[in-house]
C-alpha cells in the first residue's frame, strides 16, 4: 500500500506525493506462509469438493459430515479466505486507481471475505453436527 505524506516535491502539492507504508514484505511473507498451509489443505479439499458433484442431500452429508473431511475443509475455508482477502487487496490496489472507489472496494473485500469464511464454518459445523 501507499500512503500520502506532507512531502512536497517540485511536481506535487503537499499531500499529493505517495510513499510506501513498508507493508510490502510482511504482505508477501503472509501470502507465502498461508500458501504453505494451503498446499496440503487445498489438495485434500479438492478431492472432497469434487465429491460434491451430482450428489443428493444424503450424499453431500455422507461426503462432508465425517470428522477428517469436515476439519480439513473447515480449516481450508478459513485460511483460504484470509489468504484470498489479502490477495484480492493486491488486485484491487493494482487496478482501482480512484481513491474513493479503492477505499470502498477494500472494505467490501474485507467484509465479503469475512462473511464467506464465517458462513463456510457455520455450514460445515451444521453438516457435521450429530443429528
Amino acid at each position, binding site marked *: 500500500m501507499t500512503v500520502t505524506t506532507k512531502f512536497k516535491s517540485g511536481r506535487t502539492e503537499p499531500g499529493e506525493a505517495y510513499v510506501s507504508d513498508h507493508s510490502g514484505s510482511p504482505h508477501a511473507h503472509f501470502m507465502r506462509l498461508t500458501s*504453505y498451509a494451503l498446499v496440503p489443505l487445498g489438495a485434500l479439499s479438492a478431492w472432497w469438493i469434487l465429491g460434491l458433484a451430482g450428489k443428493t442431500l444424503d450424499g453431500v452429508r455422507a461426503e462432508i459430515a465425517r470428522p477428517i473431511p469436515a476439519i480439513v475443509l473447515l480449516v481450508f475455508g478459513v485460511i483460504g479466505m484470509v489468504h484470498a482477502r489479502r490477495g484480492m487487496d493486491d488486485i484491487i490496489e493494482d487496478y482501482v486507481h480512484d481513491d474513493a472507489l479503492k477505499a470502498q472496494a477494500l472494505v467490501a473485500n474485507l467484509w465479503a471475505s469475512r462473511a464467506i469464511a464465517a458462513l463456510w464454518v457455520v455450514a460445515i459445523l451444521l453438516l457435521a453436527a450429530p443429528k
Partner: protein
Amino acid sequence: MADADIDRLAARRPLSPHLTIFKPILTMMMSIAHRITGAGLYVGMAFLTLFLLGAAIGGGAFSAVSWIASGFIGNLIILLIVWAIFHHLLGGVRHALWDRGLYMDPRGRELLAQGTLVGGILLTVLVLIFKTLAS
C-alpha cells in the same frame, strides 16, 4: 507547462505492460493465470459456501442451491473450482521455488510454466478418474 497540458500528456503516455504489442509468452500467461485462478477461487468459494449452507439447512434450501453442484452447470462449476485449486496451488509452489532462487534461468522458468499448465490439468483429470473409480 500548464497543468492541463501535463495531464493531457500523462493520459496519452502508454501504460506498461503494453498489452497490445507484447508477444504472449507462456511464463507471462501463467503469471496472469495465477491471478485469474486466485480471483476465480474467491468467487468459487462464495458459491460453495451457498451450496454448503443450503445442504446444512436441508429441504427447500437444498433444492434452491443444488444447481451449484449438479447438472451440466454444476458439474462445470465444481470441475473449474478443482482445476483452479490445482493450477493455483502449483503456481504457489512455483513462487516458493523462485523465492529460494531455484528455476529462475530461461529453461528453468519455462519448465515451471509448462509444469503449472500441464500439472494443473493432469491433477484434475487424475482426481476425476480416481474419484469416479472410488464411487
